[in-house]
């Protein structure tokens, strides 16, 4: 609390600076009130500390104590990034690809969709101006600025992000790729990407959010993504956080599910110095299904915190959380899985499993399941394991000719594959498999085998 007040002058200064920076045609009056409210909230709340129950295992002091700057105004449509820089992130067969640099839209690098009536994939800032009718009913209605400091910070300071809108009944087979590049610089920079994804009634989409660092430098990505899944909608959502080990990354994904909708959210977390991944689905309508499937791989001195809060507000909904963690070196992992079943949410089916492998003696894992059940006709399961690489399995592989490093790599990949197996087969899954192998300690040695 006090940290925020001390820094108040600099935050206020930044806020005013932002207001001035945004070109006149991009200052959306209808949203100004919300921004100001969020800014006030942020000042009142201040950054959370370890005395807050939801932040017990993670101190954000490194973030609170660093003076971050808003990024410099770009001079070109590609924000100083070349096509060559983006080449490794191009995929075949996409419906659209949006590229953001330090939280700002780079139209020169983005590829917009064509041929689907009613489909919108664009910069959120533009959509706020041109498509207010479909943005206003949803923007900032779900992620809560009054209680969560980082959400408030994002809502007050965001410049841009992705807006994806699927009209009723559109089953989009090709994926949409949202790429967020962090262009390093000497001074610590903050970016607040804000995304809004609206999946219309009975429509279907696959969306990938990818956070990448270009070059070194201390940075802070404070992301908020709001997802609305209409009745009978299906969303396959993927998120990769692979920024550099100088980066701070806090992301909040708030999902609102209507009746009979399905949202499968897959997260792969490999980068960042201090990462907090919040996923908060609310099953508002009856018969909704939510899958939260995550993998985090820690090394060195990384701190990877995964916080889930699933809220069952209606009957017959199912939520499944599967999180696998691999912690090497002196890294530290956290899994805090909350399940809230409201009164009346009968016939709830909720399952939470967190499995952790600690190949290193100095790594540490904190896992905390938290079930709050207020309905009596529910089925709730939760489980957690913490362990080391199975000596017997290791010996078995070595007895078949693999050396120690390759054997370990194979076993680690097998463990990580549990996460991959929950994804639909396809180009996104293959893409993620490669990223995981790169991130796994020693998996490189077994790349040939894999």
């Amino acid at each position, binding site marked *: 609390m006090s940290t925020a007040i001390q820094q108040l002058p600099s935050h206020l200064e930044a806020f005013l600076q932002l207001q001035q920076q945004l070109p006149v045609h991009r200052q959306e009056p209808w949203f100004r009130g919300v921004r100001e409210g969020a800014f006030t909230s942020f000042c009142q709340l201040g950054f959370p500390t370890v005395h807050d129950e939801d932040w017990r295992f993670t101190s954000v002091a490194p973030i609170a104590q660093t003076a971050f700057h808003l990024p410099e105004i770009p001079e070109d449509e590609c924000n100083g990034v070349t096509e060559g820089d983006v080449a490794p992130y191009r995929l075949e067969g996409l419906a659209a690809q949006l590229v953001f640099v330090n939280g700002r839209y780079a139209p020169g690098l983005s590829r917009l969709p064509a041929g689907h009536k009613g489909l919108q994939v664009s910069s959120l800032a533009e959509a706020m101006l041109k498509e207010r009718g479909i943005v206003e009913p949803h923007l900032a209605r779900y992620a809560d600025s009054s209680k969560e400091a980082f959400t408030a910070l994002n809502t007050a300071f965001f410049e841009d992000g992705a807006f994806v809108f699927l009209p009723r009944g559109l089953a989009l087979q090709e994926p949409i790729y949202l790429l967020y590049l962090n262009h390093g610089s000497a001074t610590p920079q903050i970016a607040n990407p804000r995304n809004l994804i609206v999946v219309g009634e009975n429509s279907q989409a696959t969306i990938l959010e990818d956070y990448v660092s270009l070059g070194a430098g201390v940075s802070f990505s404070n992301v908020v993504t709001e997802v609305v899944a209409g009745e009978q909608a299906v969303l396959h959502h993927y998120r990769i956080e692979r920024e550099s080990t100088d980066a701070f990354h806090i992301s909040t994904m708030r999902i609102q599910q209507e009746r009979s909708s399905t949202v499968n959210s897959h997260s792969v977390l490999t980068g960042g110095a201090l990462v907090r991944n919040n996923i908060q689905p609310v099953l508002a309508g009856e018969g909704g299904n939510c899958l939260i499937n995550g993998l985090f791989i820690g090394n060195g001195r990384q701190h990877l915190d995964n916080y889930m809060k699933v809220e069952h507000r209606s009957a017959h909904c199912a939520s499944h959380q599967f999180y696998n963690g691999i912690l090497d070196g002196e890294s530290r992992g956290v899994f805090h899985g909350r399940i809230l079943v409201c009164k009346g949410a009968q016939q709830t089916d909720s399952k939470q499993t967190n499995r952790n492998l600690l190949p290193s*003696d100095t790594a540490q894992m904190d896992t905390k399941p938290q079930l709050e059940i207020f309905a*009596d*006709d529910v*089925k709730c399961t*939760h*489980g957690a*394991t*913490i362990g080391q690489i199975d000596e017997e399995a290791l010996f078995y592989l070595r007895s078949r000719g693999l050396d120690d490093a390759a054997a370990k790599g194979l076993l680690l990949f097998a463990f990580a594959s549990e996460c991959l197996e929950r994804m639909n087969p396809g180009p996104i899954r293959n893409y993620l498999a490669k990223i995981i192998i790169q991130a796994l300690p020693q998996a490189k040695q077994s790349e040939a085998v894999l």
Partner: protein
Amino acid sequence: MSTDTKIIDSLVEGEYRWGFVTEVESDSAPKGLNEDIIRLISTKKNEPEFMLEWRLKAFRHWLKLEKKEAEPKWANIKYDAIDYQDIIYYSAPKPKKAGPKSLDEVDPEILLAYEKLGLPLDEQKRLAGVAVDAVFDSVSVATTFQAKLAEIGIIFCPFSEAVQRHPELVKKYLGSVVPYSDNFFAALNAAVFTDGSFVYVPKGVRCPMELMTYFRINAADSGQFERTLIIADEGSYVSYLEGCTAPTRDKNQLHAAVVELVAHDNAEIKYSTVQNWYPGDPVTGKGGIYNFVTKRGKCEGMNSKISWTQVETGAAITWKYPSVILQGDNSVGEFYSVALSNHWQQADTGTKMIHIGKNTRSTIIAKGISAGHGQNTYRGGVKVLKSAVGARNYTQCDSLLVGDKCGAHTFPYIEAKNSTARIEHEASTSKVGDDQIFYLQQRGLPKEDALSMIINGFCKQVFRKLPMEFAVEAQKLLSVSLEGSVG
């Protein structure tokens, strides 16, 4: 959304089948607890001096605890305060001759009582070759296969006999796993225990038959304080079955037993219980048995193994935590349990696995079924001490709620002080409601079969661990306990 719970309600209400009383002459001590009563008990049992001394030490310790109001209050159960002076601590049926030497000499009324219970001892003898040590109100009545077992060196006899014939063994092991200072009820038991089973299996011997004991509490106001001690010497194996039942009474009856198991190098002890104490009046909740038990096994030797398997459907109040101390390297502890709380029963049960040696392993599978207004609390403790390198634990606790008015609570405790420990834990809570029953009905199954199928599926993992005779009885017991006046 349907709120109709009529199907479930009718299935859950049921009558206690075993409620009846046997008229047999009884030789009882006066009510109350003091040093004189203890001396009386010791005298009646012809105990050597060391036994009386141990009892008195325990009693004095208990007095201290009682003064400090140290009766455990942390359990998640409510019951009327027990007046320890209002209980008879010794009661034995008067035998027609001086001490029965075989089943034929047992009071026929008693045998008839056992038949009513559904366990004709003769049948038991013939079918399973099981040695039965039938305890009737604090005095063991029949010990059938003593001689046969003695041929291979196995001692299986009433505790009171062991104290006289094998005092050196009793002295060596009594209180080594549950000292009288362990807890309030352990102290009480140590002071006033009247009988129980004693088993010693010598080195390398595999006990060829399941050993069984039946308990029965008959005289009103008599508590039952059993003490059982089982020792498996190096490389031996024994499987012990404990089953009990009790008659209908208005006043609550106290049962504070202690069971100690010791397994040496490469030895294995399997201890199974199917328990059906009177649960209390289904409408008022009054009159059932208070069951406070301390059961503990020590895996003293390397590669030793102790398994607890239990199916509990009775008792008004149950408070018990069979535990295993995994001291020997590579030792294994297991706990498989089904606990049913129906009508107004309250159960606070669980287990404790303490990992001390290297590469120890423990498995806990606890299933709780709550029905009627039953309240079921499960506490699972897994403690891995610093010395316990390579410890592994798997815990699974599942709760099943039948109907709307019951409750289930789970408190798992995991404490690992060694980073090489591998701990796995799963817990689930689910309900059997009209929706579930309807699903099975829509596939052609009548509703009683539907409930029975769901319950059996739920308990399968545990039933599979029981010796076969027990498994069948357990299944029947469970369906009878949950059965209504179906018609």
